[in-house]
């Protein structure tokens, strides 16, 4: 874990997922296009869930809406991907974290502009915008 220079190509060519293949995820994608992180929220449990699901994980019902989160949180778990694979070309070593957002939900995301040796559980992070392509934004984080 001693590497110092993560590679972040200026214009990475990465697969752009087809949107809404699991459930309608338009608010997530529309949100991130405006630099906002928008996640599913259960109006009964008053809690967020992520990834988005067809029902609330708390009630089993479709008691769901989409709400913006602040985009701040703490690293709950982290790893540095060091082996090549589809979609990670040119991005190795790649900093990955499970981020626990302040609203009480976790999201797996890349930590941008972070040396692998600086990546650690407990560190504070804030939302950063990654670009899958120059046109397609995707949520990521950076050390706060």
């Amino acid at each position, binding site marked *: 874990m001693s590497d110092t220079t993560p590679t972040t190509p200026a214009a990475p060519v990465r697969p752009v*997922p087809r949107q809404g293949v699991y*459930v309608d995820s338009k608010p997530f994608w529309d949100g991130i296009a405006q630099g906002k992180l928008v996640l599913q929220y259960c109006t009964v449990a008053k809690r967020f869930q992520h990834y988005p699901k067809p029902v609330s994980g708390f009630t089993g019902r479709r008691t769901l809406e989409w709400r913006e989160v602040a985009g701040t949180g703490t690293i709950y*778990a*982290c*790893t540095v991907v*060091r082996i090549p694979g*589809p*979609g990670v070309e040119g991005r190795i070593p790649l900093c990955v*974290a499970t981020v626990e957002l302040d609203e009480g939900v976790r999201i797996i995301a890349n930590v941008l502009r972070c040396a692998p040796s600086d990546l650690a*559980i407990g560190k504070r992070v804030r939302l950063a915008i990654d670009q899958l392509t120059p046109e397609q934004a995707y949520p990521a984080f950076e050390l706060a």
Partner: protein
Amino acid sequence: MKKRDIVIGGYAETAIDFKTGRSAYDLAGEALDQLLERTGIDRSEIDGLSVTTALSEAQNPFFAVYMTEALGITPTWLNYGGIGGCSATGGVARAMSAIRDGMCKLAVVMSSDAPSSDWRSNYGAYRSEFQDPPGVQGPPATFGLLMSRYIHQYGLDPEALGKIAITQRAHALHNPNGYKKFQKELTMEEYLKSRVISDPLRVLDSVMFCDGANAFIVTTEENARRLGLKKMVYPVAYGEVTNFNGSDPLADITQSGFTRIGPEVLRKAGLAPKDVRMFQPYDDFTIAVMMQFEAFGFCERGEGSAYTLRTDLSFNGELPLNTGGGQISAGQPGLASGGLNLAEAVRQMFGEGGSRQVPDPRNALVTGIGVIPYGRNWGTSSAMVLEA
């Protein structure tokens, strides 16, 4: 109250190899041929079949039906097991229920896969939108995340995971079915120097996809005796849980389904951890083995490193561990993987362990793990206790 009415009355296992170029059907055929040869029963006795979903046939929704054609079996009970590495023990448990319900009399539980020759699987669901883009396509990244959290909460001595890898490798040297490339001794120095693939996970903590098949006969003890089967073991307790803590976004990911079913299964079998004669746990990664030591109560939570380092895990030691080398050192035959740990347990209890025979093999604890979900540990956990 445990029941001793149904037995595993035979097992078969093909050699495990990389890129055989063979199909799951062909490997299953070899396993069936071996099963009939070893038990001497006639194929017409088989009226139940459980087939494990194969990565190499995952696009085929009728794999199990095609398998009946391939094997020439006409079952009145057909089960298609979609819980990955839990499908072998889960298939045995479901066959037992089917037999008790009169749906069949003798079932074969068949797991066969050839992902190193032909990977035709797409996990679908939410992965392409929410899991793949940050680079968490494969199990190593998820297990890197899991290990990081385990270390944060409890600490971890890398030599403990090294000992698991080294002990299992030593066992694999005695396993003629193991993948040949892995049949050389492993030292701690080699383990510690092995490549980190997803921090802190090393390549020698991990399995490698291979091809292979295994099969088991499940029937009543009475029918087994009628058929002249001489060797049999009794599955006396089974537990399974899927999506444990799945709806809690803040669940402690170092707690797995085994935390819930592990103690229950041992209680059902009337065993304390110290009574377990051998442990054949699902071993996709070494940390999963250590977490199971804790979940089943072999040691306290967080004491996995100390327990591993102080316990003789060799086949003739205090707690014989994956005595055939496990998946990590014998090779992971795709989703037929769970049957590898089960086959080794049955083999040992039949007294057929050869140069790695466990002394007094009176019982065995076998587990399965299936599916790696989003940011947690694993999707399905299964555990079975076998008694002589």
